[in-house]
Structures are given as C-alpha cells and as structure tokens.
C-alpha cells in the first residue's frame, strides 16, 4: 500500500531544523571542551624548515600547539589512511611530517580554552619553509599528464575510459560533417553552508564520541580507529544533521584527524571548526579540459564520437571518475574513442562534487551536440532524437528503463520549444536578446548493500535505524514514508535514527544511491517484521490468518490483514499481547544483485531561456524547465527541491562559479563566498520541474533510481546553448561572464 510514498510530504525534521533543535557537528557540547584552530601553510610545495610556537604558547589560555614534531603517534602505513572511498595513491596525512603538498595545508594546531584564544594564538605561530617550485595551473600542465588505460570491460573499472568502438578516425574522415572543439570547466568548490567541524568528546577509558560533519559516519569511524590505532569499539561517530556537503564529506576531512589528535593529546574534549577560507583547502571539483569531435552523415546519424579529457588531481592521489563515456549512453554511434588524462597539481586531491564528471563532461558533450545542430541547421532537439540510443553501447545492453523521450517531449511542451526560431540573435525582447537552449542530462541509478533495523512496539510505533546520513536531501523523510507504508502505520508513528556509526551498516551517502538502497532495505526488513508478526498471529487461537503465508498478508492501519479477504485481520497490539512480546525487532541487509543484463540510469531534458542585454552583456536565466526520468519518485516535494537545487547550481556553473588560483603563489584567492560567486536569489527565476512516469521493475523491487545528482547535469549546457542562441557567441570556457561575450 502506498499512502505516503510518492506524496509531497514535508520534511519530518523540518521543525527541528527551523527551530534550531537539530544540532550540527559544531553545536554539541561537552564538559571542559577545548577549542582548536588550524595554522595553514602559506606555500604550495616544499618542506617545513622551522616552526616557532613560543609566542603562541605564551598566550594565556593556550593548552597546546601541536605540530608534526610533537603530535601523538599516528599510524605509519599509507593503508591506515585509506578511507572507504579513497582513490589510489597515498592519502594526505595531516600534521604527519614536514612535507607541504598544497597551500593552506594544516601545519600546526593550536588548542585553547576558548575559540578566540586559539585563533589569536594560531596567528602567532611562525613557520619557515624550504620552498619548492609548484604548479597549480592545469593549462601549464596539460602536456605533462599521464593517461588512464582504457579497459576492456567497464565492469572492471567503471571509472576508466571505456573501450573504443569501430574505427573512429576512419569514420570521422569520411563523415559528411564534423565538429571539433575544446571546452573548459574550472575548479569549483562545494561551499556547503555548514562549516567543516568536529566535536570530539573524550570519555572514560579514552573512548571517543565524535560529532562530525560527514556523509559517512562509519567511514569516519573506521578511518579514525585505523589512523590512531584505536579499538574500533571505542570510537563512535555521530552526524545526525549535515548542513550540505555535496560530496565534500564523502571522505573524512582533515579537521576530524586534528580534533582527535588534540583530544588524545590533552585527554580532553575538543572542538575544531574550520573557517570558510580553510574550507577551500579541502577537495574540489577537478578542472576539466575536454576535446570532443563529432562526425555526422547526411541523414543525421552520428558517424563517430571522440572524447578526450584532462582532469586535475593532486601529487599524491589519483582521483578520477568516468569522464568521457557519457556519450556512449546517450547517442548511438558505431565508432567511438575515449581518452582520459590526469594532470598533477600542487593542490589538495580533487573529489566528488554533485554529479562528479557528468556535470562537467555532459556540459561539453551537450554543447558540442548543439554546435553540430547549428552547423547542420537542425533543431537541437531533433538532432538528439535522431541520435537517440536505446542501448548502453559500452556494455551493449538495454536500460532497465529509459524515459528520456518522454523528458524531451514533456519538457519541450512545457517550455514551448516549438515556438523557437532557429537562427541565433533572432529572438528579442526590447533591449534584450532572447535565447532558448536545451541539453540532455544523464546519471547512474546506483544501489549499495545496506542494513536496516526496525523495532516495532505493540502500540504501533516503529523505530527505523540505519547508519546512513541525511545531508539535507530529505533522507529522514523518505525513510519515514517508506516505513510507514511498509508497516501500515501513520507517518507520525515512525521514528528515524540515522547518522550514528553504531547503527546498522551503511556506506557513505553519495552517488544518489541512498534513497533506492535504504528504501529497499526498509522493505526487506519490514517483510521480516511481517513474517514474525504472522508467526505470532498464527498462534492466536482461532486466528483468521492461520493458513496464510507471509506474502498473503499486508500491514495496514496497525493490523495484519489478509490480502485475500480484508475482513481477515488482527491488530498488531493483539498479536503481540498474545505472543507475550511488547516489541519486535529485525535487522536485514538489502543487497542488489546486478545481473549485468541492463544498465541503470536516470535521464533528464533541460530547457533554458536566457535574456542578454545586447549592449552590456548581462545574462539573466529567466526560465528553466527540467524534465526528469528518475524512476519512482518517493516524495514529490523533496524530489522537486533536489532538482531545483541542481538547476540553481547549474546556473552557477554556467555563469558564476570559478575557484581563482594565483599560480605564482599557488594559492586560492577567492576563498570566501563574497568573492566565490554562486547564484543569489536575483539570479534565479522560474524553474519548472517535471517528473515523467518511469515504471521500472528491474532496477530494484521498489523501482527507485535516486535523484541527488541528475538535477545539475545538462543545466550548464542548456544555458550555454541558450546564450549562443541569444547572442551568436559560443563561449566554451565556463563560467560565461559578460567579458567573454565581448571578446
């Protein structure tokens, strides 16, 4: 029964959030809490020659100044620092030794009685360096990259370049028309509202409870236990609420290491909150240089695609994702070649950021498709329909479902696409040029093994527990909705507990995989609850359910009801009373068997309208329609919010976002949200979100695909294409600032 699934249910944690009772990592208190402040390196590469902490230590109220020279012991092996989602390489170890790997890397930690004292003392630490030459400019490094080996089968390494198909060079040479161009997306930072923070509560026998800003409490728990060689049962990590993370919290961040270091050193509870500026020393979306070539034959079918990408990583780790293969999912082409190179820069390691790789790679692909359509004098939507692929060509298999055609159709209708006049600069509104652009989005419908515990009490209340987190997406709410429907209880009778490493196993919350995984986990566990109830119910003398199997009954309105005859029912309370129990508890793991017969993806079609002042070049994104095929929608309200958030971010990606690095100093110079621009309210106008029906009985029993990332994919391309349509100018390096329209 679905009373709640699919409905527009308000967040069950909304009240706690707006009234301030929802606590974040930096808001937990402990007796004798000490406060820490980080000193960051001012150089990008080299070694620490000397650290003078004497002035800092002489400030009244300072408890300790920790450096690589006097810190408590940490594991010496690289493997100890490998968290669940670490890329290949040697993870960064905060305060480990004298090596400087990136600017603003922590070099000392001041711990004091008050945060202000810690910050003051931190400003008094003097560090001298042996400076080495650094390079932070991907353009300078583009010819000293290293290539990732393409794989035979993507299942072996889904992030490697896909295997080539056919004879792309030959086919391009004989194509009727070719388009080749280079596109660039700069480094971008996540900028979640909540600052990275850890509050480490030092308890009896050196047990630690750590309130941490993270997307994976169990990942942090394992990591901390491993780095400090602690008994894992002595480390508990909690993260009940997260003020956004967008991928930056998938890996444990350095503040948790430093806070634990200080706590172990002082045998005291410690809190460390990073400053907004220090947040730019964490991971980032790698800059991406891309060359795409498309060849097409006269009847509008793609002859060949080549996609070459260069992305950015650190000197010590190789972070990369599937950058080049998206066209193999979207567009039918017998011939294709993919190449992906990494450029090492003296920066922190890049990391996942909302729709990692798809946001950037599909931007380039969808601009290239638009350019091809312009060259062919073909409607851009029509070109996509002609090239539409029913199959995933990398794995040569069909999709479990693919509602993209519906997205194109319904998006176009809602937008009024058929009214578009094809010529660039042909639409205007007074002093403004009007442009309409569109693009496709694609993402993966992933799922991961996850355990859920349900405790059902005789009064018809249930507690659902899982170590996942809600990073602001609405996980609490969808878990409650699914549980309420599976257990036949009112939403208010459901309590959701997440964000605690002692709860049943969950991987990090990322990749848009939690909604599908945890919902099926709840269904699986609810099934076990139902079976146990039925077992008890059968023992009741004269039970109307005596001859039924677990699949013959459902939980409905606090009762166990026969599917065959709704009159045959017993209440949960009666069953439990007879059975002599007052609660039933079950914990089950949902795992997802991928047969390999189908590919699982979400899709979208994004339509954007821009208005550009002809004289000045100011760009306004006046309208966006995003039509999404994302399987079954669990909550119409939070789902819409996710997509809207993605669209807003896509506006930022298209027009505003760029991490500015001074390559002489190797430092990020716009490290605050006054100078790192993201869209403000004035930049956001009408956004319409459409979910097309996409029933999918293959992807998982509940047909859920996840929506966390699809909302951003394609948006920047739709806007860039609209800007071209408005102005006739093709800007191929983001963000599209007004000066680029003048060049």
């Amino acid at each position: 029964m679905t009373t709640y699934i699919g409905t527009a249910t308000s967040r069950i944690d909304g009240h706690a959030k707006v009234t301030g009772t929802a606590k974040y990592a930096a808001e937990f208190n402990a007796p004798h809490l000490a406060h820490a402040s980080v000193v960051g390196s001012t150089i990008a590469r080299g070694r620490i020659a000397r650290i003078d902490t004497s002035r800092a230590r002489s400030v009244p109220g300072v408890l300790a100044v920790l450096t690589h020279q006097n810190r408590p012991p940490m594991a010496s092996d690289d493997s100890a620092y490998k968290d669940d989602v670490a890329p290949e390489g040697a993870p960064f170890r905060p305060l480990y030794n004298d090596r400087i790997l990136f600017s603003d890397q922590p070099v000392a930690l001041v711990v004091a009685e008050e945060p202000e004292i810690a910050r003051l003392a931190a400003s008094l630490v003097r560090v001298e360096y042996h400076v080495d030459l650094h390079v932070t400019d991907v353009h300078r490094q583009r010819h000293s990259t290293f290539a990732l080996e393409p794989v035979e089968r993507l299942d072996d390494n889904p992030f490697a370049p896909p295997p080539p198909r056919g004879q792309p060079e030959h086919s391009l040479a004989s194509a009727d028309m070719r388009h080749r161009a280079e596109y660039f997306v700069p480094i971008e930072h996540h900028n979640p509202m909540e600052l990275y923070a850890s509050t480490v509560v030092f308890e009896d026998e050196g047990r630690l409870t750590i309130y941490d800003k993270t997307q994976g409490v169990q990942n942090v728990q394992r990591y901390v236990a491993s780095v400090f060689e602690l008994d894992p049962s002595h480390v508990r990590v909690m993260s009940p609420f997260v003020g956004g993370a967008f991928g930056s919290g998938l890996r444990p961040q350095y503040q948790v290491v430093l806070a634990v270091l200080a706590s172990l050193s002082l045998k005291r509870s410690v809190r460390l909150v990073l400053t907004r500026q220090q947040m730019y020393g964490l991971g980032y979306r790698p800059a991406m240089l891309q060359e795409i070539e498309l060849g097409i034959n006269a009847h509008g079918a793609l002859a060949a695609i080549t996609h070459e990408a260069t992305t950015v990583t650190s000197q010590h780790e190789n972070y990369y994702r599937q950058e080049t293969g998206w066209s193999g999912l979207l567009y039918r082409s017998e011939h294709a070649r993919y190449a992906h190179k990494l450029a090492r820069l003296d920066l922190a390691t890049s990391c996942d950021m909302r729709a990692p790789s798809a946001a950037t790679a599909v931007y380039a692909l969808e601009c290239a498709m638009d350019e091809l359509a312009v060259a062919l004098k073909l409607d851009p939507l029509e070109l996509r329909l002609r090239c539409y692929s029913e199959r995933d060509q990398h794995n040569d298999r069909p999709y479990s479902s693919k509602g993209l055609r519906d997205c194109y159709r319904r998006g176009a209708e809602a937008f009024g696409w058929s009214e578009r006049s094809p010529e660039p600069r042909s639409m205007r509104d007074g002093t403004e040029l009007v442009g309409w652009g569109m693009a496709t989005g694609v993402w993966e419908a992933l799922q991961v093994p996850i355990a859920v515990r349900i405790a059902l009490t005789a009064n018809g209340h249930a507690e659902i527990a899982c170590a996942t987190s809600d990073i602001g997406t609405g996980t609490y709410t969808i878990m409650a909705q699914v549980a309420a429907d599976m257990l036949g209880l009112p939403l208010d009778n459901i309590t959701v507990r997440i964000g605690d490493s002692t709860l049943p196993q969950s991987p990090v919350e990322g990749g848009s995989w939690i909604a599908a995984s945890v919902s099926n986990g709840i269904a699986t566990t609810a099934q076990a609850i139902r079976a146990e109830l039925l077992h008890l119910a059968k023992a009741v003398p004269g039970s109307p359910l005596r001859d039924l199997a677990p699949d013959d009954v459902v939980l409905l309105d606090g009762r166990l009801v026969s599917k065959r005859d709704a009159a045959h029912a017993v209440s949960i309370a009666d069953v439990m009373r007879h059975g002599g129990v007052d609660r039933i508890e079950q914990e089950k793991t949902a795992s997802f068997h991928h047969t390999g017969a189908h590919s699982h993806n979400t899709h979208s079609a994004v339509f954007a309208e821009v208005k550009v002042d002809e004289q000045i070049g100011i760009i306004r994104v006046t309208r966006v329609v995003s039509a999404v095929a994302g399987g079954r929608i669990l909550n119409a309200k939070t789902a819409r919010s996710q997509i809207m958030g993605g669209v807003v971010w896509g506006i930022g990606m298209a027009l505003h976002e760029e991490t500015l690095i001074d390559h002489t100093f190797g430092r990020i110079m716009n490290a605050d949200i006054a100078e790192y621009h993201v869209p403000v309210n004035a930049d956001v106008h009408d956004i319409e979100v459409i979910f097309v029906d996409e029933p999918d009985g293959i992807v998982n029993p509940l047909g859920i695909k996840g929506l966390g990332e699809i909302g951003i994919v394609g948006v920047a391309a739709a806007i860039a294409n609209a800007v071209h349509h408005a102005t006739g100018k093709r800007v191929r390096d983001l963000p599209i600032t007004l000066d680029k329209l003048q060049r």
Partner: protein
Amino acid sequence: MIGFQYSRAQDVADAVRQIAAEPSAKFIAGGTNLIDLMKQDVERPSRLIDISRLPLRSVEETASGGLRIGALVPNADLAYHPLIAQRYPMLASSILAGASAQLRNMASTGGNLLQRTRCYYFYDTATPCNKRVPGSGCSAIAGLNRMHAILGTSESCIATHPSDMCVALVALDATVHVAGPAGARVIAFADFHRLPGDEPQRDTTLQDGEIVTAVELPERGFSAHYTYLKIRDRLSYAFALVSVAAGLELEGDRIKDARLALGGVAHKPWRDPTAETALRGQPASQATFASAATILLRDAKGYEHNRFKIDLARRAIVRALTQAAAGTPQLQSSKKIA
C-alpha cells in the same frame, strides 16, 4: 585575529581624544568591513573604539537647502529616508545596489566611505601587497586583476575603491565633515579618497585622529534625470565591475548640466570635470554620450584580466546617460537593465 581592547566613545570629542592617545586603535561602526579584516589578520588594531552609539544618526535639512547625514546613519535607513528617496534618488539607488539587505542594515555612512578595497591580495597575508604592507610589492599587477582599476593606477597599487554609495556622493558634490585633534574641517568629496601613488596604504586624506561626523549634500539632487547603473558578475550581491552614477539637467533635449561618476574603475570614485563639460550644452544624444565616455576614459589602462572594463565602461556610460536623459533610471529591484 589578534587580542584587542574595547572601549566606547562618549561623544565625538572623546572619540578623537581616545584615538589620538592610541594611534594603533580603530573606530568601529557597523563592523561589517573591519571585523572581516581583523579575522583575516589584515587589520590588527590594539583597541576598538566603538562609535556606534554616538548621536550621529540623524538626517537634517541644512540652511542652504541641502541635507546633513550623520556618519552613523545606517545605509538601509539612508536609502529609504523619504528626503533621500525624493530629492536624491541617485544616492538611494546607489546604496541599494550595494551589498545585501543584512549588510546595509549594519553598515554606516562613515564606514561605507572608509571601507577598504576588495583586492584578493590585500585580504591574504600570505601574499605581498603594498597597501597592507608598504614596500612589499603589488601582487595584483601581474596576478588576478580582473576586478582592478583602469584609471589612476600607479606602479604600487591598482586596487579599486569598492563603494557604490560613494560614486553617487561624488557625483552629487557632497562634502565630508570631519573632526580631529586640530578641530573640525570639511573636505570636498572628490578630495576625500585619494589615488594610490606611492602611498597605497592611504585610502583617504583623513588625517590621524580624525573622525567622520557627517556627509553633507548640497541642494541639487538631479532627481528628474538620474541613474545608478551597476554592472557586476551576478545580478545582486557582488561588487561592481563598473558602475555609473549619472545626473542630467535638461532644457528640451539639450543638456544644461551634467554629473558623471564611475565606480569599480579606480582607487577612488572617479569623476572627471572635462567629461561633464563635454556634455554641457550638447544635445542629449548617443553621439554626445559616446564622446563624453571617450573623454572620461581617455587615460584608461587595462591589465591582463581587466582590459574588458574599458569597453564595458564606455557602454555603461552611454547606457546610463541614456537612462538618465529618458527619465527611466535603473531600478535596483529589477535586474533587467532599463
């Protein structure tokens, strides 16, 4: 952030006395700029002298038909003050083009004049900056200088003054009232901010120990034909790439008098009398506007990343004068350019 003392000034004389006694102290008004700079270790005052409760919060009419604005009038109050909105809408508009509603509630009139540049290097103590540490060098000249100045730069500094309000104030011929150890004096707005020269650490001509007590507006407000046009990288809440304050007095379609000032292009709000002279007596036409722009920008010099500002400024001047002449000023509530 360093440790500092805190005291409150009892009255203007006390504020002057306190700062004269401790030259490393600083006044704090709204704190929206100073506190940020202190957190970044850019400003390191030994003491904050809190002037926010001094009785400098009124807007009063002067005998000569103008207005006297107390130095502590919040930016928001000033923008929405009925006399400002009626008689000096260019000023109101420029204030509303700046910062955010929250910041404008805190920011004071005096603090707005004395806010410091947003040059990235000025904010980052790990990099050389002549304005922060005289003699250390200017990192922006060969660095990230997209936001920087195109007029009046020097080899020591190419920073801009970031204020919007000040652009309207210089266009309106305002004056700045200050009090100091040597008594009170009045400074013409155009002389208040200075060019960097070889002393970029000095933003203004304010002397040690002086406090801004008021800003005075003369009678003429150009309220019929004015505009404040701000061009920035997003539609709100960003500093100006270029901004233009324009005021015209028309006789038929001839320009009888004109005011024209630019923001985001120099170390001070930029006003050039020769450009205004070129407008006077001319028809209010695109050609006139374009030639005024050419005159105003005749010495403009771009750097690696900000060359575009020269042409952008030219277009913005023409557009702003068009708006002013047509009596269709830029509305700050609308992000569409009028």
